[in-house]
């Protein structure tokens, strides 16, 4: 019984999965590009959480190093992504995905 309550690897992983799902839902359901971006950030953070949990329960620092890298890359990615959104907005005056369907052609 106590194993069920005691916070183990599985608990963290389930939190990670749920967070990931929330992020995915945000990406799928929201219209605003910036909010979609936030969904992406949530998914990345879910992955971070899983990695840190693995690192902790395996007594291995490699997972944390990986998270460090991910945070760095995510920062760079956000910077570039937001810059793209800005550029796009200048051209199209919109940040709604439904207005951006030129991929069809």
């Amino acid at each position: 019984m106590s194993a069920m309550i005691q916070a183990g690897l599985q608990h963290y992983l389930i939190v990670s999965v749920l967070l990931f799902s929330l992020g995915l839902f945000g990406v799928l359901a929201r219209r605003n590009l910036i909010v979609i971006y936030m969904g992406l950030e949530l998914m990345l953070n879910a992955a971070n959480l899983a990695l840190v949990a693995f690192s902790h329960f395996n007594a291995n620092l490699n997972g944390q190093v990986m998270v460090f890298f991910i945070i760095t890359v995510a920062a760079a990615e956000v910077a570039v992504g937001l810059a793209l959104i800005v550029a796009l907005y200048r051209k199209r005056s919109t940040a709604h995905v439904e207005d951006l369907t030129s991929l069809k052609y």
Partner: protein
Amino acid sequence: MEHANTTVTAAAPAFSSRPEDLAWFILLLPLIAAAGIAFFVRKSNVLSAVFSIGAVLAAFFLSVGLFITFGIGGEATVTTPFSWIHVGDLNVNLGVTVDRLSVLMLLVVTGVSALVQIYSIGYMHGDRSFSRFFSSLSLFTFSMLGIVLADNFVMMFVFWELVGLSSYLLIGFWYEKPSAGDAAKKAFLTNRIGDFGFLIGILMVWAATGSVSFAGIAHKLGADPAALGSMASIAGLLVFCGAMGKSAQFPLHVWLPDAMEGPTPVSALIHAATMVAAGVYMLCRTFFLYQVPAAWPGPLSFLGSISALDIIAVIGGFTALLAALIAIQQNDIKRILAYSTLSQLGYMVMAVGCGGPDAAMYHLTTHAGFKALLFLGAGSVIHACHHEQDIWKMGGLWSKLPVTFRTFAIGTAALAGLPILTSGFYSKDAILDAAITGGHPVLFGLGVLVAAMTTFYMLRLVIVAFFGAPRTEAAGHAHESPNSMIWPLIVLAVPSVAVAWLPLGDFLSAHFNPHFHPHEGGGIFGPFNHAPLAATFGTGALLFGAAAAFHLYWNAPKDPLPGQLGLIGRAMKNRFYFDEIYDGVLVPLHDMLARLADWFDRWIVSGLIIRGVHGSTELVGRALRLVQTGNLQTYTFMFAAGVAVVVMIALKLK
């Protein structure tokens, strides 16, 4: 597996010192010439002729050497230096058979081919496709030599088809003439029908004996005559189908007269040495197939003990009679000769059917000589009369074309079988003798009748064309052909007479029967001694035919026969309406089949299958196009769904 009474060598090819290995050179020389002309000297008429004639002459002299070797007792060999196909149990070699049969045939083919080619220099002079003609002739010769030398069915079939192809090229040589193109197609397609049977026959023999080589099959059948099972006679008849096409036996005889559309030298070559001889030669080569007891599968068991040979004999005899009847009422000089060839081929096939392949080969050899002579003579006449072919528009040519006339007369005498003097007498006698000893008195009677008719229509041709008064301007101004055309005639006239005194019959009999002993009292009067019945009847038929011809045609202004024969005469003149019957029955049937195939192709293959595939692809494409909204989130959704599926599979979740 391949041990018959011939020795099999798998030694290194051609270049050892044995005379048999010359056969490879004989085979390849014309091919080299054909390829050389086609690839290198096409522009030069002189060089083309030199190449072609040089090759075939060299082959001829090699053949003579080979023949002499055999005459003094050479050993039959099969040389198979190259393995060609080796798949599972099927083992096909490229090999040559050198025995009495093939060396004699080599001599005939190269000899006639050489003379025809020399003759062609004059006949084809000025034709703009001169070199193409010689290249095709060389190819034709090569193909025929391949059939002669082949040591197995597969190789023979390949060369068989090559002969078909080269005959197509040559019959349709003047392809700008629609009739020549049609004749070439007709010859090719008619042959194809026979070849179809031939191929099935080969497959049946192979399935039953597990071998395609002649020596192997002969060995197998020698050990176990029932090896072919209940299909023995059917297999034999199917193989005969091939001969039926090439040697123009009823009912596939219709192509041969039309093949006259080709240049006359080609006709000579086809009729004498290369194409039509192939069928008879093949029957003799595979005669072991027909020596097995008759056996029929269930539905055909009512045929009982009637063997394939009996059927072949009847077909041959019928063809001989039919063709002779038609020949009597033809007016075109080449057509008369064409039907005469048909008739003589029927004779040979009948001889094979009566169990006398040696007689058939003997007649084939002599016939090759004098039929080539007759055709080249006819070519000379046509050439002299400015391409007039109707004998009723000639007349009185004997004084204007003395050499042509004399040689043509010799050829006619040989074809009619003038006793003692000509080769035709001896070979024809051998056939009639084979019919008696084979136990076919009816066919013997038929043979005698055909012999009389042969004399009749040949003398009709000679009397009408060469005697009497010239009936047209052209005939009046005819003059002798150039030397290159005259000399081959003279050379060919020699064997028509001289072969008579060579013991060729015995030479061949020894091939088919190792225990054969020459007849007592041979020599030039031999036939009267050992086959008096045949010789006497043959001579009688000759006299009767000659008398009838002189009675009817000497100084006749026009043909008296149609009036006397009435309806039958018209039928004979119109070749018994075979072409019309085929046109009326086979062509609509064929058209129907073609329409059915067309319908099937159009609606089932194109409509259902092709358009079905194309349509469903397009439909799926249209459906998938709806998915391409351009909306990022749609793509993300599909991506997520895909990931879900992949993860599910990767984790093996159920």
